[in-house]
């Protein structure tokens, strides 16, 4: 029989509901796994074994009364440290929030607790979610469970690594330009960015407000669907929250993809894509075709320009979102005789390099005389990206591409070249600009033995369809490879 930490969320919830295992056993097994692996992986900024234990006890007590259990009762969860939890240190990976203990919890935190999950820790991340490698964390890089010399991707690298390494069967990340899908791809797990507005952002420490979206990590598609159901829904505290009712994502999950029109994004097959990645992607296309998918190439010319637009829009919004970290109300404060000096020193000492770079870039892009040339133009490119997608979805139900052009790279390899680092998000960014959902699922190992991700994109609110396609693919290919840990 498998170890408890190897079980999927679905299995754990089922066995606890059946009375085969207790939630406390599950919590302890994962707490122990975290304790054992953390020195090597560093997936968490703040492990929360006591919270997991207390939540598990409550689940067991509830089961003892015979009351029905929520769908994820007793399932351990890694929560990206960018979501506020009342009374629990929340850093966003930044030194400036090192001692920050929020006075409130985000909406998804309440929803996840209601769904019965056990919070095992606040997961590591690139500072303020800015990065594609977790190297920008003020709390040290997270190591890829497949190869400890490599990055797990980012910015939700901690959550992805934790799920890959069996520290939790499910995790929560955030995706602004690929920050769930790219680490999912690099760590060999499933990760999904829902439609913008499908999951409340209330309590999510903002990076780029018009792009940020919370989403699930899991080791299989079914768990992903379960977790998405736990967090999706309208929230009156988030003006940009979608009021439409949430479907049951498990319903029709196994309906298959016979006759589904699938577009391969031509622009994702450039020579910049690693051969092993391109190879696994071609294999995946064959599998999809064998399942009855009608596959054809499609060109989205704006795809290649989305990156540049993103690297103006996201920094512009972040420059404003991060203005509040000034040493006045919370977080770090540097000594200085005047308020403005105090602000400037606090921010200089509290922010890391990448954050400063993007704050500078965004401030410049919004400043007098440059707004039209940069931010204004970028918003127009955003329109072009949306138009390209709209046109493609006239002909296709879903679009596919590799999630990331490469497999996990070595720690430090791209650290000094921001532009090279930004290219990681080439294929994931367009969905953020369009507000549309996309999922990354493992599609085998590349020539270097590292996982490759298949990205499936769809129009607004097509989560059910994406999960169905991903499930069909996963079922045909079999369970994803697990890291040697």
């Amino acid at each position: 029989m498998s170890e408890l930490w190897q079980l999927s969320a679905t299995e754990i919830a089922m066995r606890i509901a059946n009375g085969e295992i207790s939630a406390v056993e599950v919590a302890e097994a994962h707490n122990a796994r975290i304790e054992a692996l953390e020195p090597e992986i560093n997936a968490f900024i703040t492990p929360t074994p006591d919270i997991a234990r207390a939540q598990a006890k409550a689940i067991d007590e509830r089961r003892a009364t015979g009351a029905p259990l929520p769908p994820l009762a007793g399932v351990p969860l890694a929560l990206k440290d960018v979501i506020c939890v009342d009374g629990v240190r929340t850093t966003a990976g930044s030194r400036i929030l090192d001692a920050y203990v929020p006075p409130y919890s985000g909406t998804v935190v309440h929803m996840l607790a209601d769904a019965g999950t056990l919070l095992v820790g606040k997961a590591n991340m690139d500072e303020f979610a800015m990065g594609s490698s977790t190297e920008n964390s003020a709390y040290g890089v997270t190591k890829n469970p497949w190869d400890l010399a490599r990055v797990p991707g980012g910015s939700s690298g901690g959550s992805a690594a934790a799920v890959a390494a069996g520290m939790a069967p499910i995790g929560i990340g955030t995706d602004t330009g690929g920050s769930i899908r790219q680490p999912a791809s690099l760590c060999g797990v499933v990760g999904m960015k829902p439609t913008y507005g499908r999951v409340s952002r209330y309590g999510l420490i903002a990076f780029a407000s018009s792009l940020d979206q919370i989403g699930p990590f899991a080791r299989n598609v079914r768990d992903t669907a379960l977790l998405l159901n736990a967090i999706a829904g309208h929230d009156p505290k988030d003006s940009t929250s979608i009021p439409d009712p949430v479907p049951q994502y498990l319903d029709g999950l196994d309906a298959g993809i016979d006759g589904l029109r699938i577009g391969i994004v031509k622009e994702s097959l450039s020579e910049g894509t690693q051969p092993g990645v391109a190879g696994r992607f071609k294999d995946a296309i064959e599998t999809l075709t064998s399942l009855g998918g009608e596959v054809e190439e499609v060109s989205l010319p704006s795809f290649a320009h989305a990156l540049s637009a993103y690297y103006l829009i996201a920094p512009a919004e972040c420059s404003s979102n991060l203005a509040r970290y000034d040493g006045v109300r919370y977080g770090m404060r540097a000594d200085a005789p005047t308020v403005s000096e105090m602000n400037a020193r606090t921010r200089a000492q509290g922010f890391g390099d990448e954050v400063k770079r993007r704050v500078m870039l965004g401030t410049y892009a919004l400043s007098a005389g440059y707004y039209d040339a940069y931010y204004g133009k970028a918003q127009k490119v955003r329109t072009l990206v949306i138009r390209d997608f709209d046109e493609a979805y006239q002909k296709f139900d879903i679009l596919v591409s590799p999630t990331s052009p490469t497999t996990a790279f070595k720690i430090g390899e791209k650290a000094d070249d921001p532009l090279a680092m930004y290219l990681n998000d080439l294929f994931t960014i367009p969905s953020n600009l369009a507000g549309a959902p996309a999922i990354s699922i493992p599609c085998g190992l590349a020539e270097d033995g590292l996982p490759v991700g298949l990205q499936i994109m769809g129009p607004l609110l097509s989560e059910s369809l994406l999960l169905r396609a991903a499930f069909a693919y996963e079922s045909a290919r079999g369970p994803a490879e697990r890291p040697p840990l």
Partner: protein
Amino acid sequence: MALTKEQVLHVAKLARLALSDDEIEKFQRQLSVILDHAEKVMALADDGVPATAHALPLSNVFREDVAEPCLPQDKALSTAPESEQGRFKVPRIMEDPT
């Protein structure tokens, strides 16, 4: 386009970042490269294309005008680096608000 050192200093001032000389020099270089790259691509977007600020076609989201409970004072101040008399304490404010 290449940014001048003065521009970088001006931006750092707007962004309230006390940057070192090394950082100023580094950002001058790096931002110039990024902006250069961006500019080439931005040329695509002509004047006929409308800007998109929100990807979703939603509008008119409001809350009703109903008062709700607040945080207790000690909780509101619990995160404060310094406080006094129930207020957030800050060093001398030299400039006037706008």
